[in-house]
């Protein structure tokens, strides 16, 4: 099979400065202080290959490195060590409607957002009607965005992103768009995209979505890969471990988890 994306022992370290000099004043003050910084490995030694036609889901608790991995794939940040090879055009849906401006009309924003995502103007011209139609915004397309409802803005943003013809589509937890029928339309669209071109990589806490949409999933835990396999299987492993985490008492000495899976000290955060 063709690998469209290959990560070899990919690691990302963030340096947490306790009081990072944001100004000359702080820089000056910190010069006389022992450096108050701390390293934090958001991702550690991740090996991953994504193949043509795959829809890969990434699951894991908050702070497990899912978004860091997506940002690396999207080239927003660079890996500290390791190698990342990507063949083809990546388009990242990390945020809907990037660069949308409230004073511009829907139409103007389509062209602005499209340009940011790297969609050629000609393609936008060709797909303009289709975008407006899909987003169900025919009546409002010449209205400034500030008069749109939140749902309309989300729909517009999502639709523009889907009009890309990416080789690899990255999606970060943004499928909670619009009403049920619009969501179904988006799902169909993503399935269709994945079937015709490249691969999709999806981060989500919505496990039923991962199970339904993804052919394969990985489970990230504290920046390392804890499981990799068919989506339904990985989701069940992940769910089991989460369930166990809630059941074991805080000082529980029953360490029965297999392999690289470790007890996370974090309490379940809100949301």
């Amino acid at each position: 099979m063709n690998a469209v994306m290959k990560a070899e022992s990919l690691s990302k370290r963030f340096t947490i400065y306790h009081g990072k000099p944001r100004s000359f004043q702080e820089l000056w003050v910190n010069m006389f202080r022992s450096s108050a910084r701390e390293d934090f490995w958001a991702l550690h030694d991740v090996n991953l290959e994504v193949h043509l036609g795959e829809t890969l889901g990434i699951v894991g608790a908050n702070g497990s490195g899912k978004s860091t991995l997506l940002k690396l794939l999207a080239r927003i940040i660079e890996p500290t060590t390791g190698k990342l090879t990507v063949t083809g055009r990546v388009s990242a849906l990390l945020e809907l409607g990037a660069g949308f401006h409230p004073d511009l009309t829907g139409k103007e924003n389509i062209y602005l957002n499209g340009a940011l995502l790297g969609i050629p103007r000609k393609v936008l011209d060709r797909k303009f009607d289709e975008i407006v139609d899909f987003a169900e915004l025919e009546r409002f397309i010449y209205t400034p965005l500030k008069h749109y409802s939140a749902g309309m803005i989300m729909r517009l943003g999502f639709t523009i992103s889907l009009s890309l013809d990416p080789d690899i589509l990255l999606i970060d937890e943004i499928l909670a768009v619009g009403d049920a029928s619009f969501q179904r339309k988006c799902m169909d669209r993503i399935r269709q995209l994945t079937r015709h071109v490249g691969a999709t990589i999806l981060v989500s806490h919505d496990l039923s979505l991962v199970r339904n949409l993804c052919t394969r999933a990985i489970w990230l835990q504290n920046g390392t890969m804890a499981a990799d396999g068919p989506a339904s299987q990985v989701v069940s492993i992940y769910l089991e471990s989460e369930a166990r985490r809630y059941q074991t008492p805080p000082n529980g000495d029953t360490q029965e988890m297999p392999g690289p899976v470790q007890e996370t000290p974090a309490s379940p955060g809100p949301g």
Partner: protein
Amino acid sequence: MNRLGEFIRYRELLSTLVVRDLKLRYRNSLLGFVWSLLNPLLMMLVFTTVFTVMMRNNGTPNFPIFALIGILAWNWCSSSVMASVNSVVGNAPLIKKVYFPREVLPTSTVLSNMANFLLALIVLFPLLLAFGIRPSAALVLIPVVIAGQAIFLLGLAFVLSAVNVFFRDTLMIVDVLVLAWFFLTPVFYRIEDLFPNYTRLMYWLNPMASYITSYRQILLNGEWLGYDFLLRTLAISVMVLVGGYAFFARSAHLFGEEL
């Protein structure tokens, strides 16, 4: 070079951003685009009042036009510099969420201010005729001078926008420096009058002085520029651009984390 190629591939984004800036600048104002023309004219009025009515000993011929040329070129410079400082930091949400060559941001601020400058030139030519000044063949050099100023301002924009990511004091410092720079630039005087002993040095150190003097020499006096003068100014500008771009390119990969 790879980087530069990618930048060029994103030129549609660049033009879209420039058009957005121009559209947004006047979208909610009553007079809209007219302000691009009205603002320099009003400033010309202020300068002329100050320097010919309030301070009478001003012998510069055609002072209103003389001042207007300085104001237009200077406005392009100061507004580009001030806007470029925040061009990367102000777009932090974009940089953290979307990949695109970051060079596009400072470049678009310089170019949209350049477009504004070009529009404002429209008022200049009728005024030149009104003051009885005939355009000369030297006018063909104007695009060269404009390109030179754009190159210089781009270089500055790259440095300032990148530095501001790491040190947010940049804006406050630049704010003061631009004021000092304004007084050291011949917007309402001639270098030869104020710095008779340091004329060469002032031109060397301050490409804006050279550019403003060049515009005046061509538009006001209808004279050709000395080639050494023009080439030296262009050479300094290109050096600023190369240095600025190199600095930007080296630090751009950190933007996603720093912001």
